[in-house]
């Protein structure tokens, strides 16, 4: 109980500090909303210039991008700000976090929970609803389960990617933007059907790192469409499993990183 109260205090302190700069907070909120709308608009513009992207129509493409952005927005809202870890390591804030009798990861998450990103998740879910209507999905219990589990699994998966990318700072403080290649890069990868990419790049991102299972495979299962790349239909239901594996790896990397951490000195 005491621990929960401590976490609640961390969160409410953070929330009050954000809400006290009201104009800045509103500007941030609006910018975030605008940003998510733009992500969707970018997809619409690309489809305007063409009839289909790798054999997928606009409605199908919209389903893929909305599944991806639901997962990403949820992960970004909850653990996204962990990518500031490199600043904490460099400035020594990490030491203060570690001496408290609370787990480090939840503390870091709550110290900087980006409330302003909440609208992003709302927009992403609305787009998903529109995409489902446009595609005339034939509902079965399996698909109903999938449409709920896929964004959640996507969120866990992206959360794991956020944590792994941030952990890099334990070994390489000046890693700079490298993490973005996998967090935001992963989001961009999952925003389009996997057949768009090819060669070793597709193999690496879609299957070795598992990004193909976040939005593309679940979308195929929802649409009842065979995978042009040859994976069986049940591959769409694999996303929770892939997310669990990613979360496990993230936990190991995080723990190893924390043990490896030797402060930055005075």
């Amino acid at each position, binding site marked *: 109980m005491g621990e929960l109260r401590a976490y609640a205090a961390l969160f409410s302190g953070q929330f009050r500090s954000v809400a006290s*700069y009201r*104009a*800045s907070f509103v*500007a*941030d909120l609006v*910018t975030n909303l*605008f*940003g998510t709308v*733009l992500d969707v*608009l*970018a997809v619409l*513009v*690309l489809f*305007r*210039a*063409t*009839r*289909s*992207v*790798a*054999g997928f129509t606009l409605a199908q493409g919209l389903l893929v991008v909305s599944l991806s952005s639901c997962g990403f927005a949820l992960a970004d809202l909850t653990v996204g700000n962990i990518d500031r870890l490199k600043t904490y390591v460099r400035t020594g804030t990490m030491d203060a976090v570690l001496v408290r009798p609370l787990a480090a990861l939840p503390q870091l998450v709550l110290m900087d929970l980006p409330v302003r990103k909440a609208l992003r998740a709302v927009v992403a879910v609305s787009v998903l609803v529109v995409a489902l209507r446009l595609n005339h999905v034939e509902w079965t219990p399996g698909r109903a389960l999938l449409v709920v589990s896929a964004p959640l699994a996507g969120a866990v998966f992206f959360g794991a990617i956020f944590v792994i990318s941030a952990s890099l700072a334990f070994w*390489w403080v*000046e*890693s*700079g*933007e*490298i993490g*973005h*290649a*996998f967090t935001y*890069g992963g989001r*961009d*990868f999952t925003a*389009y059907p996997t*057949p*768009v*990419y*090819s060669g070793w*790049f597709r193999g690496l991102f879609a299957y070795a790192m598992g990004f193909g299972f976040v939005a593309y495979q679940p979308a195929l299962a929802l649409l009842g469409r065979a995978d042009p790349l040859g994976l069986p239909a049940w591959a769409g239901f694999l996303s929770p499993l892939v997310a669990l594996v990613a979360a496990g790896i993230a936990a190991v990397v995080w723990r190893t990183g924390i043990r490896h951490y030797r402060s930055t000195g005075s």
Partner: protein
Amino acid sequence: MDGLDARVPVISPRRPFRDWVSTFGALSWSGFRRYATYRQATIAGSFTNTVFGFLRCYVLLAVAAGAAGGRPGGYGAEQLASFVWVGQGLLTVVSLWGWTELADRIRSGDVAADLLRPVPPIVGYLAPDLGRAGHAMIFRFLPPLAVGALFFDLYAPSRWFTVPLFALSIVLAVVASLGLRFLVNATAYWLHDARGPIALWTLSAGVLAGLYFPLRFLPDWLAVLLWVATPFPGLLQTPLDVLVERDPAPVQLGLVALQAVWATALITAAVFVQRRAERRLVAQGG
């Protein structure tokens, strides 16, 4: 210590032009050297630009493959590949994101030191920024482009003047970008906290400059409106269109001329805003 007062001495009154050039050069070189020390960040940034190059290139090539006639927005597949890879290199050169130096200095009061220097503040920022851009041309522009050339077929310009025009276009883009960033940061003179305007700038710069998709994919009237009414296409889309020879030669030249107009307007506006701000700036403390 007799003749000293608060007036700023004029550097070498007898040879103003030559010394002005050497001051500007020294400031630029300092900008170059400063960024040359961020070696790890340069490697990390180039890696990330390269990954995004793959992502964007595959998407645009898929768009081209599905488009009627295979030329979306009037670009061929090789032109699109060049557009993406050169763009990935160029976005750091024109510093499309995240420059908060002036806003931070205004907030902390350090900007008062800028006003004491014997060069106008706008020059004091422009010269190092050109040095920074020069560093980025070598260490951030070339690596992604080399990787792109290795894995994709890129477009080779066919007109003799395209490459020099592209170089001029980059310089104008850097100057316009600095003008814009200066103006966005200068809102901190009035707001104290420029995070809102900077966030808005980051967002609009990416989309309206043509990073996420070539602006030619938009309806014609909207693309023309963006070009004429906003400075953003001049930051990225214009240099890239010049290099991939998207338009006939007169339009190519016209786009660069438009860039020059915007660059001049933005620097003029920055000078004006700075002068207004100086009149209301209260430096805290002793």
